[in-house]
């Protein structure tokens, strides 16, 4: 009888310790998850800012200005343009 009780006591202690450890593990993992989620949010914000930056740099008014003034480019007029129709449209 006493032996069974001792075994059960040992089991109980083991279970209790297991519970504590797993709870601790869960919390640690949760904190990690939380951290990663915050990071994701931060990256999202950064992505938004980068998108903003990209579209600011790529604004057509700016591109056109750079092309004209710095690269001395110009739009070819219609006389120097050869229009190639897509095969489907040409076959009609």
């Amino acid at each position, binding site marked *: 009888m006493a032996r069974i009780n001792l075994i059960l006591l040992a089991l109980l202690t083991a279970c209790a310790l297991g519970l504590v450890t797993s709870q601790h593990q869960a919390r640690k993992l949760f*904190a990690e998850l939380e951290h990663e989620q915050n990071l994701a949010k931060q990256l999202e914000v950064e992505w938004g*800012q980068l*998108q*903003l930056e990209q*579209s600011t740099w790529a604004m*057509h008014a700016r591109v056109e200005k750079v092309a004209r003034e710095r690269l001395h480019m110009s739009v070819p007029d219609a006389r120097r343009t050869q229009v190639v*129709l897509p095969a489907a*449209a040409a076959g009609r």
Partner: protein
Amino acid sequence: MNYAASPVLALRLPLWRSRLLLALIAGGFLVLAGRAVYLQGLNNDFLQQKGESRYSRVLEISANRGKITDRHGEALAISTPVKSVWAIPEEVQYSSQQRARLAALLELSPREIDKRLNEATAFVYLKRQIAPEVAERVGELRISGLFQNREYRRYYPGGEVMAQVLGFTGADDAGQEGIELAFQSTLAGKSGSRRVIKDRLGQIVEDTESIREAQNGRDLVLALDARLQNLAFSQLKRAVNSTKAKAGAIVVLDAKTGEVLALANLPTYNPNNRNRLAGAQLRNRVITDTFEPGSTLKPFTVAVAIEQGKATPASVIATAGGSLSIGKATIHDAHRFGDMTVAQVIQRSSNVGAAKIALSLPAEAMWGMFDQVGFGAAPRLGFPGEAGGKLRAYKSWRPIEQATMAYGHGISVSLLQLARAYTIFARDGELMPLSLLRIDTPPVGKQVISAATAHKLRDMLELAVQPGGTAPRARVMGYRVAGKTGTAHKEENGGYAERKYVSSFVGLAPASDPRLVIAVMLDEPSAGEYYGGVVAAPVFSAVMGGALRMLGVPPDAPLNPLELPPEGSEIKESV
């Protein structure tokens, strides 16, 4: 001495004393048990709440406002988080050194900070919407009584080019103008909240419940094409500067789908820096302002006549003499050409011809046409402040009014309504519903005139941009163009202003299978020239040419260089 024989032990105390003691102790335990039951079972809310507040917190989850992009996904409006610095003035304590640092960081003078702090006692914003990096440095000053909260600020990379279309949001991230206001419910996010358990270090260890999910606002894809928008804006700007016009507007419609591909206004403003804004800059003239369109309405009058069988393009109208008297009023033409065919009335924009055609028509039929192409009713785009214009009931028309309406006076429309009405000529008689958002399947139009009539009108409108018409400057190399000029005296104080004009041009191309409808309007051009064919048509030509090239529309005309007629040789239209 024997212990057991002690006489003290032999002493008998009365039994009630021990009983009383027992009862008292038992009673004490009962009271304790009762209190415990009361606190833990019956009235436990208060303590539970207190206990929870030691470890559980409700966190706000912020939601993003949706992006606005053009039809190709280019970002036109994006929100990014910023910080606002606020203070509880009663609690603010800082050294003069800290104050100087704070003032420098917030770009305020120290005296201004003092003034703000003296304004209120409980709450005051020191500065709203500052960059997160600056906010962090403000936080490092560790001034008590100073707090920060997170807000969103909206940026518009396109700046002034599409300011009136997009509108803007206020400091609380709610739309105040334009599309930001019109689609507020779509764009706005709903912030959520959740309850969490924090440990003594303030780290979240457990998520106990999600009270409300945060919902980010949805992204909005506009019909606008940023390249076309920029082209339209820059050409309009050039024209407004060179003609010294007070204002200008342009709209580009896709004739196939009814989408608004570009829409620009001048004067304009920079939505990223909205100091000193005036009403004139904010107005989206294309949508919210109406004007008397003038000759651009003549094609509709002629369309009624052809639909009713009252005329064909070749029927001759007795316009010789160049004037027509109705009652006390007289209508004049700018040039005398002798009698003209209906096609020539459009080509040379004859007021007398249009008036004579109108007088041969029942008022009801003319009203019916104007009504069906959408004049007098707002186009229902969902845009704030859409104008419907003025179209009076035909029963109250007098003959002179019917005659003047034939060439666009006594009726007012917005530029958007005018461009939309021209879709009936671009689409074989169908009027298209318009859309500010990109649509994947084109909607079904409403048949207003027959395809045959639409073709005849398109041919006449093509004549108007040929040499001998009012707008040879509207031509585009490589494409057949059709269009009509308009020049009208401005209405002022109930009459017409002598020297103030609204010049316009509405046209479509390529005429063989129209893809785009473009309407241009210049308000009070005052550099000498004011005819629509001289000031507005070149804008149309430049934008149409560029747009067709960008969209890859195959040319339908030989690529011969256009020879512009010498200055001042085009047919002056009647005003």
